Structure formats: structure tokens, C-alpha cells
């Protein structure tokens, strides 16, 4: 098991400037039986912080204490040891609840209400005005593809539809701190993709998100930092890169190569490393199943095939994307925007120790998902603004970044350690300089 380093992700630290949203110190929870004997130690001396504006992951297998930790953060349970604070206050403080949105592991909704009434009920708990309520309800229902089913009672909904409604109620107050406990449970891949894009969107907008899941792929795509629990104990903490990067391997991606070229590359590597290193594996990257699924759905939608279930939804609700009075728009245009995380692109890659992979094709399925398009476009615009401010990119690369290409631009790969730039240059015949800084890299799912 990788041990977490006490380093912080530079991106999240740059986003978070204020006090931490959640501080847990030696947090413990022991459940007792009727005779007050210790029955189960669900959480055992767990300490962590959730910083402002970061997307924090809480991972662990079933029964590891994730939901119990969340319940203590929300005041649904009292810790038997340690302490936890939210926005500097106790979890039972009523005022802080205005800034929190919570999606429990199951959507516990009122079966006798319909979607509209459900959202209206929760909106009134925040004392929202009528017009604001109606606007947000409309936008959320549209965003989650529930507009057609909004007048049906919740008891008639499928699990996925109930889950979407649960997400909507968690967002109705435009929370500063969003807690999502297994948000993608019951959702189809479209919905899952949408939720992940939404989380990233919210993160970009400066929201703090606590994401709890045992679906690792969902968490990996979204979070800045994460904690892994097992048996109520924290086993690892850190950023994805810190925890997942293999330091002893290098991945290089190129266009399709024939066998002779691969052999030549292998010979060069061996020569340069005196036989210590070699090309370990050569393969063609695969499109992910999610990307294929989304492609098919997108095609069906363009052919206008009918469906009675939830649709893929529309764009992210405007009140979640921006302040409703538009004041943040100006600050957004002039503020630093983080680079879009690589989670939105579906990329295949091969990792090897100083090896080069042959890439026959690179495709991104995310570009065919309408719900992600605004995020991608927003990401492109963000990069453009960044470039204008910092003056790092050429006009040509700017134009490329603006186009919603099948292969959307993703986060530039950090400089790989242990890779000899001159080697690459020689392989490519003294090709472009700065290739590593600007070429897109795609992670294999």
C-alpha cells in the first residue's frame, strides 16, 4: 500500500486559500449494543482536513466507515472520540446547513410527492423566494433530464431517477460544500458521466466537494485529494498523482508504428541504457467501454429514438455554473482558472519503463457526450484566457484549443521524470521542441 506523502497538490492548494471546510481530529465512532457494550468500531481515530474549493475523495470498501464519517460531519451521529468541525462550527449548528448540500447513499425521498413538489419542499426549507425556487427547480430538472417525469410521484420512479432527484435536492441551495455519498449508484453511464462532469464543474467554480464512493474510477476522475479507509482506519491520504503514479516507468505515445520502427526504438533504448532498459510492452490503446456507450447513445439521440426513461439532461444549471446575478462572471474572466483535469478525456496509453507505445489511434469518446461539451468548451476558453494572461501559447495552438475536436485538449502532462528529451528528439528526427509541454496526453482507463 502506498504511503501518503505529506505533500499537497499544487492545483488544489492554489484554489484553496481560506480555512479548511472540515477538520476531523482523531475522529472515532463506536456503536454499542443494548447493554452498552462496544459492538462495532466503525471509525477509529481518523484525522483529515477538507480544504476550501477542493474535491475530496473518501474511499474504502463496504463497511470501512465512509458513511459513518459523513454522518458525523453532518451531525446525524455524534463522535464517541475526537472531534469534527464544519466551517469552524459544530456539525449540529443549524446555520452552517445553509451552505451544505447532502446526497445520502440512498435517495430517501417522499414517495407521495412528485419531483417538482419534492424540490419545492426542500427549497422552502432554505427559505428561497418563489421565483428563485421555480427557476432553480426548472433548471435542475432540465439538467438531470427529469422534466418529462416531473409530475409523476416518486414511488413510480426507477432507482436511477430517484438518484437524480436526490442529486437535485442536494444542489437546490447552491451549496458551498457538497457531500455526495455514492452519487453514481443506480445511474447509467450517461448519468455517471454527467455527475462527474458536474462535480468537476462545481470544483472549478470554487465549491468544496466531498465524494464518497467505492467505485474507484468515479473518484479517480474527479478528486484533488483523497483518503482511503479500511476498517475505520485511514490507510492512505494524498493526491491521485502522489498515490497512483508509478515512478519507475515512462509512457510515450506516438502515431502508429511498424515493427521495424519499434525494434529500432528498442535498440536505441538498450544501447543508451547499456541493456538495463528496454521496450517492455507494445499495444494499441483501446477506446473505453464508457466512451463507446456514450457514442452509441449520442448517435441514437441524433436519430431521435424515443425513450420513456430519464434523458441525458441538458446543460448544467445556470445557478450552479455562475452566480445568478452575474457578478462572478467578471471575476471568472480575470481570475486564475485551474487546468481542466484529464478525467474528461478518454485516452488509452501504455506505461512502460522508458518504453514507447505504438498508438494506432487516439480517440476521445467524451467529445460525443453533449453534457460534457460545455465543460470542454469552458475548459478550452479557460485555457485561452490563461494563455492570454500568461502569453504561453502561440496563436496556432490557441486556435487548436478553441476547436471542439474529437480529441479534446486535456491537461498537459507533467514532465516525465527519467525521460531523455534528446532521445525523443532523435527518435522523431529532431522534431518539435517542447513537445512534452504542449502535446496532449491521455490516460488509459
Amino acid at each position, binding site marked *: 500500500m502506498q504511503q501518503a506523502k505529506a505533500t499537497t497538490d499544487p492545483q488544489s492548494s492554489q484554489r484553496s486559500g481560506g480555512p479548511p471546510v472540515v477538520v476531523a481530529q482523531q475522529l472515532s465512532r463506536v456503536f454499542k449494543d443494548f447493554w452498552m457494550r462496544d459492538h462495532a468500531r466503525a471509525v477509529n481515530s481518523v484525522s483529515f482536513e477538507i480544504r476550501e474549493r477542493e474535491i475530496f475523495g473518501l474511499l474504502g470498501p463496504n463497511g470501512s466507515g465512509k458513511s459513518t464519517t459523513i454522518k458525523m460531519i453532518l451531525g446525524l*451521529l455524534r463522535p464517541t472520540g475526537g472531534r469534527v468541525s464544519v466551517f469552524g462550527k459544530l456539525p449540529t449548528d443549524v446555520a452552517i446547513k445553509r451552505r451544505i448540500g447532502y446526497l445520502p447513499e440512498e435517495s430517501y425521498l417522499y414517495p*407521495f410527492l412528485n419531483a417538482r413538489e419534492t424540490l419545492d419542499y426542500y427549497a422552502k426549507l432554505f427559505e428561497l423566494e418563489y421565483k428563485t425556487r421555480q427557476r432553480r427547480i426548472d433548471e435542475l430538472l432540465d439538467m438531470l433530464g427529469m422534466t418529462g417525469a416531473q409530475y409523476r410521484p416518486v414511488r413510480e420512479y426507477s432507482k436511477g431517477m430517484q438518484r437524480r432527484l436526490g442529486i437535485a435536492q442536494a444542489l437546490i441551495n447552491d451549496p458551498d460544500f457538497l457531500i455526495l455519498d455514492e452519487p453514481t449508484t443506480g445511474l447509467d453511464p450517461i448519468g455517471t458521466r454527467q455527475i462527474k462532469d458536474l462535480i468537476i464543474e462545481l470544483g472549478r467554480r470554487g465549491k468544496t466537494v466531498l465524494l464518497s464512493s467505492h467505485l474507484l474510477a468515479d473518484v479517480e476522475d474527479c478528486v484533488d485529494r483523497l483518503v482511503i479507509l479500511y476498517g475505520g482506519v485511514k490507510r492512505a491520504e494524498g493526491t491521485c498523482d502522489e498515490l497512483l503514479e508509478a515512478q519507475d516507468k515512462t509512457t510515450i505515445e506516438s502515431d502508429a508504428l511498424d515493427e521495424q520502427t519499434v525494434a529500432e526504438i528498442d535498440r536505441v533504448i538498450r544501447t543508451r541504457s547499456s541493456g538495463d532498459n528496454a521496450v517492455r510492452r507494445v499495444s494499441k490503446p483501446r477506446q473505453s467501454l464508457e466512451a463507446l456507450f456514450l457514442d452509441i447513445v449520442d448517435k441514437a439521440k441524433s436519430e431521435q429514438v424515443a425513450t420513456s426513461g430519464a434523458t441525458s439532461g441538458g446543460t448544467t444549471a445556470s445557478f450552479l455554473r455562475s452566480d445568478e446575478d452575474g457578478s462572478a462572471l467578471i471575476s471568472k474572466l480575470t481570475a486564475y482558472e485551474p487546468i481542466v483535469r484529464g478525467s474528461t478525456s478518454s485516452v488509452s496509453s501504455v506505461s512502460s519503463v522508458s518504453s514507447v507505445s505504438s498508438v494506432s489511434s487516439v480517440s476521445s469518446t467524451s467529445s460525443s457526450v453533449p453534457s460534457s461539451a460545455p465543460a470542454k468548451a469552458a475548459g478550452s476558453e479557460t485555457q485561452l484566457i490563461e494563455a492570454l494572461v500568461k502569453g504561453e501559447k502561440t496563436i496556432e495552438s490557441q486556435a487548436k484549443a478553441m476547436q471542439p475536436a474529437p480529441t479534446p485538449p486535456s491537461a498537459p502532462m507533467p514532465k516525465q521524470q527519467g525521460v531523455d528529451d534528446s532521445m525523443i528528439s532523435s527518435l522523431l528526427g529532431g522534431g518539435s521542441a517542447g513537445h512534452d509541454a504542449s502535446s496532449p496526453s491521455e490516460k488509459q482507463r
Partner: protein
Amino acid sequence: MIGRIWSIIERTQHSRLFKIIASCVIVAVALAMLIIYSVASAKARTQMIEQFRTEFGDAAVQEVLNNQASNDQASGDAATNANSASSPRAMSQAQDGDSDEARRAGQEVDEGARVIRSIIAAQYNTSSIAIAIGLGTLLCLTVIWVSMGLTYLLLAVGCALMLGIAALSGSLKSLAPFIVGIFALTGSFSALMRLMMVALSWSSPVFSIARNVLQEAIRMKVSLIFIVAMIFGLAVLPMLLSDDQPLRYRIQSFLQYGTSGTFGLIAILIVLFSVMTVASEQRDKQIWQTVTKPVAAWQYVLGKWLGMAALSASLLGVSASGIFVFTEYLRHQPAQGETSAFRASQGAMLTEDRFMVETQVLSSRRTIAPDPAPWNPKQLNEEIEKKIQVELDSMQVPGDTPEQLAANKDAARERIRSDLLKGLSMSYRTILPADNRIYTFSGLSDAKNSDRPLIFRYKIQSGSNMPDQLYKVTIAFPGVGQAKVEDVPLDQIKVLELNAGLINERGEVIMQIFNGDASTQTPNPRAFTFPSEGLKLSYASSSYQANYMRLMFVLWIKLLFLAMVGVCAATFLSFPVAAIVSFAIFWAAEGAKSLASALETYETTTLQGQTIWFNTAVAKIAELISSIFSVYSNLRPTGRLVEGEYLGWGSLASGTIVVSIWCLVLFAAGVLIFRRRELAIYSGH
């Protein structure tokens, strides 16, 4: 096609223009109905006066016209004029001999005429009809402005169709009240609930939670069953009344079963639903998504209770309106001996049945108990000391120390005093054969000028109360020189009407009761006793309608208390346990009065004076329960309604304050417990 028509209907009844036009039409129709009724009743009154003139003469007619001009002064003027203007019958009797007896007979006739005049005045008093028209207009306006006007119009058309079918099948008379009742009650309930939802539509946690409770009540099958049962039961009840019975019994039966039945159903629903709405949210975890919003514990509990309050107000409003309207309908049915309402087939203007309906059933009467026995305190204490000495002599054990003797004496003193007072009170209400007793009823000054008779209600018990035995009871009024001999069955309530002239200047009625026929000196075989509350004198005070509203308010207060019990019990108990606890409290509160009565005869010692510890413990618990709920149980709204008993503003206020304090205490306890709950741990597991 139907969908299109329905969408047109929906759009129309939502439009503001339609609402304004419909409202104007409704108000115009209501005013027209009121005017038409006033004109028609004036015409009918004229006919009654002509009949009255035949029996009582022109002078009495002039009094009627004077009284009709001002209803507020009717009682006072009639009382004054009755003494001066004698009826022809009274005058002729006076001319016959001017004897005391003739004068008394004349006074009785005058008194009867005065009562009849007031009943006629009440019959043609438009206040009841105005209230009914007003309520109906308000309901119609509510329906229109909650965008259900055309829907209800369609319902009315449906009702008319069903009535038509019933008419064709020849069962209109028996089915009409049921059909109209079902539609009217269902429509009223829907409109009221819609109004409540609109009233609770503010954007705040308390109102949002309350509104959610109402929606749950309408849409969940459990509560819907109770609502349907209540509406159905109330609509069916009139069909179960037998036309052969006197009208007063029919009205009393309807009031008794209608009020107690609907209150019982509503109370059960309120208890069950108030528990369920809180307990089920905790069990099914919907509460997690509420308490993780900015909702304080007190807001949650208050919101749930407010929702129950609105639900109980709707249900009670519907049932109370239905009972009131149908009672008025029954009142205008022919009584025994009448060809039509208020028109006797022969003889007197008003039959006995009609008279009792108007003066005893649909009335509001203050009740006075006789003054307590005039014991001499010094004499009482001497008697107590004598008995203590006798008892100590019998229970003294050789070798007892003086301290032991003193302790025994103190313990015995209270017990003997209590037993002695009970015994004296019993003996004061007991009359031996050929003996008599004088009872004084005070505080009747207000009744002196009333134009309604006094009602003397009494019950005698003797031996094993054989149902076929009749005792002779002579009731005399020493100050006035009147006496009546009654044949009284044992253990049954007997009612006697007395004229207000029996009240002396001090506001007292002094009554001398003989065991037997005093005129023939024939005593009964055994002594008889008036049980507790077996001697009551009552007089009319306030109007039936106002009293009805106060009593319905009392019922609502009780339901609010039950709702608070249910909500607070469910904050920390699971559904079955909370329901049992709530029902236990409900039955204890409702039965406190019966418990207090039973305690009077409950023995806690053996004949030899030994304490029965189990009985003593039971008695202590029962005393505690009856004392806690004494105010609640003394309100007795259903009993008062059936007996036409007055509930004063003072009693209403004190009862409301006491129940409100209980509600506040329960609310505080519920909030404190709820704040400490760990809602992620369900107590039912």
C-alpha cells in the same frame, strides 16, 4: 377529447376573470336567497300570529309585534308585559273568582304564552339561516379562488344526476340525504384542504413541513381510509334515524352519534397519523434530508404539529358543518303531533315534542346544582371527634405507646373526616319515606327575566332500581305555593319544566321534595337517593349556535393536544410504542371523569378497617390521573351538546389555557429529546 375538454376546464377555472365573475354571481345569489327567505318567513310569521291571536287575544298579539321589532329586547319586554297584559283565558279565570288558584292558573298561562312567543320569534329569526348562507357562500368563494370552481360545478351536476336516478327508482327520500351529504362533505373537505395548503405555502421550514404533512395525509392510504369513513359515516347516519321516534330523540341521537363518532374517528386518525408522520420518517430515513437542511429541532416539531392542527381543523370543520346543517334540517322536520314544522295538527300551537326540541335540546342552558348541606362546622367537628374516639377504642392494642396512639389518631382523623363528609353528603341527598328535604338553588338572577322555562333534571335511586317500579315524588315550592306530584321511574332521568317566576328576589329557587304523594299522605316503600349530579336546575343562556361553536372549538383543542402527544412521543419512540402511549393518554384523558365518579365508591379498606394495599395503590394512581385530566374531562363537549348545556367563556378560556400549557410542556420535552437524538440510529431496530 376528454383530455382536451379537461384542459379547457382547468384553464378556465384558473383564470382571474372567471374567478371574479363567479364570485360576483355567488354573492348575488346568496343575497337573493337571504332576501327571499326573510320575505317568506315574514309571511309565515304573519300566519302564525293570526293563529296566536285566536288563542291568546289581541293584547298578546301586540306584544308579539313589539317583540319581533327588536329581538334583543324580546326577553326583557316580554317578561315585563306578561305580568301586565293577561291573556283572555287568564282574565276569565280571574273574573270567575279571583282566587289564589285562579290567579296562579292565569300566571301559568301567561308564562306559557311568553315561552311560545319566544320560540316563534326564534323560529323566524333569520340568524341561523344567515349563518348557513354565509358559510355556504364562503365555501363557494373558497372553491372558486383555489381554482376548483368548475370542478365543483361538475360535482354538483354529478350529484344532481344521482339524485335524479334515485328519484326515478323511487328511493329519493331515503337516499337524498346520503347522496347530498357525500357530495357536500367531500367537496367541503377538498376545498378546506386546498385552502389550508394555500395558507401554508409560505417559504419557511415550519410551513413547508406542515404542508408536507397535509399532502401526506391526502395521498397516503392509511389516512385516506379514515377520512372516507368519517364522511361516509356522517352521510349515512341520518338514514339510520327512525321517523317513528320523537323529533327530540332523533336530534339527540344524531348529535350524540354524529359528534362522538366523528370526534372518535378524527381523534384516532390524529393520534395514529401524528405518530406515523414522525416515526416513519425516522425509520425510512427521509428525515436525514430534512435535518441536514437549516431546520432547527423546534421548527421540525412545530411544523409537524401545525400540519396536524390544519388537518384536524379541516376534518372537524367539515364534520361540524355537516352536523350543524343536518341538525337544522331535522329541526325543520315535523315533530310528533305536527303536520309540518312548527304547526301542530290540533290543539296547542306547539306540541310537547317541539317544545322540548326548542327549549331543551337545541338550546344552551346553564346548570346549577343545589347548595351544599348547611352543616355547622363546630357540630361537624364534634361528630368527627366522637367517631375517632369510638374507632380508636376498637383498634387500640394493649401496650401501644402514646406516640403510636397519636400517630394512629392522626391517620384515622383524615380518613374518618372524608368518610363522614361522604356519608353526610349522601344522607343530604337521601329522603326517607314520608320525609321531605329542602334544596336551594342559588345564582339564578340572570334567569329571572328569561322568557324560557327553567328545566329541572333529576334522577332517583332506591334499592336495586327495578325498572318497572314507579315512585311518587312531590315537588313543592314553599314561597310560591305551588306543588306537583310526579310518577318517577327509578334510575332514569326525569325532566320538569318550571317557570322563571319561581325565582325569588335573591335569585334563588327553594324546592321542597317529598318522598311520596304529599297530597294523599302516601309514602313510597323505601327511601330514595339523588345520586351525584342527580339534581340539576338549568336555564337558557346564550344562543345554541354560539354554544355550538364553542363546543366545536373545545373538540379542536382536544385534537391539538392529541396531536402534540403523538408528535412528541414519536420523536424518541418507535411507531407501535408511541402509538400505544398516545392512545393510553387519550383514553386516560377522556375517561378521567368516569374514573373520578368510580373512585367515590371504590373501597380501599375492608369492613374491619384494614387497608387493602393494592386497592389503595390503584386508587392513588386513578386519583392522580383524574386530577391531571380533570379540566380536560370536565369540558365534556359532546355531552353538553346533546343535553343542551351551556359552556361559558370562562370555562372555555380556562380549559384552553390548561391544554395549551400541557401542549407547551410536551413541545418543550419533544424538542429537547429530538435535539439529543442520533437520527442515524433508528430506535426501532
